[in-house]
């Protein structure tokens, strides 16, 4: 629960949140909040969109302060569904927005390498992308099972640990791609393009890191809480 920093509260305006951490823009869209929200506070916007302000603030705080460990004891089954929706929308952003940008950059960079280097680099990226999609598919299947459990009002609902751990492999591969682009591509590869691709990889890497925190510090304990309630 404790954090070294003053956490965001319901009285913050959305504009203040974004001013404090612009990366929360993506949180808004994954919570289905539209822009042009004027000077409304977090509490007001959550009422308007029928969101739990507690959940919304947890996600904003965990996305901003990596040492923040929320107390998820008060989260409802609806909140759990909302977290899973948030994670699904994140997957969709990674696969449909981030990865195509990185792919087109990597392809352009590989075009400056010799034939075999180009093929090996593209294959490395393809394998990474397939691995990522496969992992997200597995995760979404687990979400569907959990959805079913929640609807039927009981039973064991958990995110398999191996699904959570698989993220680390993805992060390692992303670090590998970063190292290759920073250190080992031929000098002929244009620096500007390299920087662009790198910035996108860093953004994705950071986003996935937050994604892992939301799973491990929010979803997993919230599901454990649900099971406890179902048993009693």
């Amino acid at each position, binding site marked *: 629960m404790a954090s070294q920093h003053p956490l965001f509260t319901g009285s913050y305006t959305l504009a203040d949140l974004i001013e404090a951490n612009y990366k929360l823009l993506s949180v808004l869209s994954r919570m289905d909040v539209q822009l042009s929200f004027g000077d409304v506070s977090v509490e007001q916007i959550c009422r308007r969109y029928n969101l739990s302000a507690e959940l919304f603030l947890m996600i904003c705080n965990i996305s901003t302060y990596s040492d923040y460990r929320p107390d998820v004891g008060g989260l409802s089954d609806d909140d759990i569904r909302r977290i899973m929706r948030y994670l699904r929308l994140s997957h969709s952003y990674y696969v449909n927005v981030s990865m195509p940008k990185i792919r087109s950059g990597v392809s352009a960079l590989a075009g400056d390498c010799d034939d075999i280097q180009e093929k090996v680099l593209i294959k490395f990226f393809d394998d990474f992308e397939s691995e990522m999609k496969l992992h997200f598919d597995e995760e979404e299947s687990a979400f569907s099972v959990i959805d079913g459990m929640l609807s039927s009002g009981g039973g064991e609902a958990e995110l398999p640990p191996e699904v959570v751990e698989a993220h680390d492999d993805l992060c390692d*591969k992303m670090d590998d791609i970063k190292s290759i682009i920073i250190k080992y591509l031929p000098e002929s590869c244009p620096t500007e393009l390299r920087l662009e691709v790198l910035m996108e990889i860093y953004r994705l890497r950071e986003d996935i890191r937050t994604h892992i925190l939301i799973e491990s510090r929010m979803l997993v304990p919230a599901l454990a809480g649900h099971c406890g309630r179902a048993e009693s």
Partner: protein
Amino acid sequence: MSARVMIVVPSPMVGEGLKSIINGSQDYTVAGVVPDMQSCMERIPVMVPDIVVIDTVLLAHGGRSSVSIYNAYPELQPRTVVGLVAGACDDELMRQFDGTVNLYDGQMQILRKLRAASRNRDVSPHKVNNEISEREREILVLVASGMTNKEIADRLSISIHTVIAHRKNISHKTGIKSVAGLTVYALMNNMIDRNSIDL
């Protein structure tokens, strides 16, 4: 308090002589004399020397002088390292020492050079070289060719733990952890035969 000195020389005669010269000074205590680098690495955690005097014949063989001694023997990195030179010695190797003593130096010269080496070490700490060593390169190529740690250990007749330690160093130096990433690295650096790549 006197500084602790470890002596690494294959010749017992030279070792005992150097020990008695160094122990003759109040500033130094000889923590031990060992005959080779392997014993040196094993005994360093026990002897915790401030200064290690190494006979350069132990380092110059096998064309390894291009590899930083602080990479090859990381335990040396935090210590003052002095080369004991008998004759001609590779310049590259000489530059890596904090100081050198000559086999024909007298007692006062040796003690003066040890003091100078310690000062030198304080001014310019050792840098760890981030280049891949020959052994690491050999292992990297086998990793990139798809061999498992066990297969590499068998092929090179080394323990699997040694393979894992080398792989950790390789990943640390290259910034690449996955086998697929290391294959890209090996190819980018022309370490593997292009025709051997299965695409």
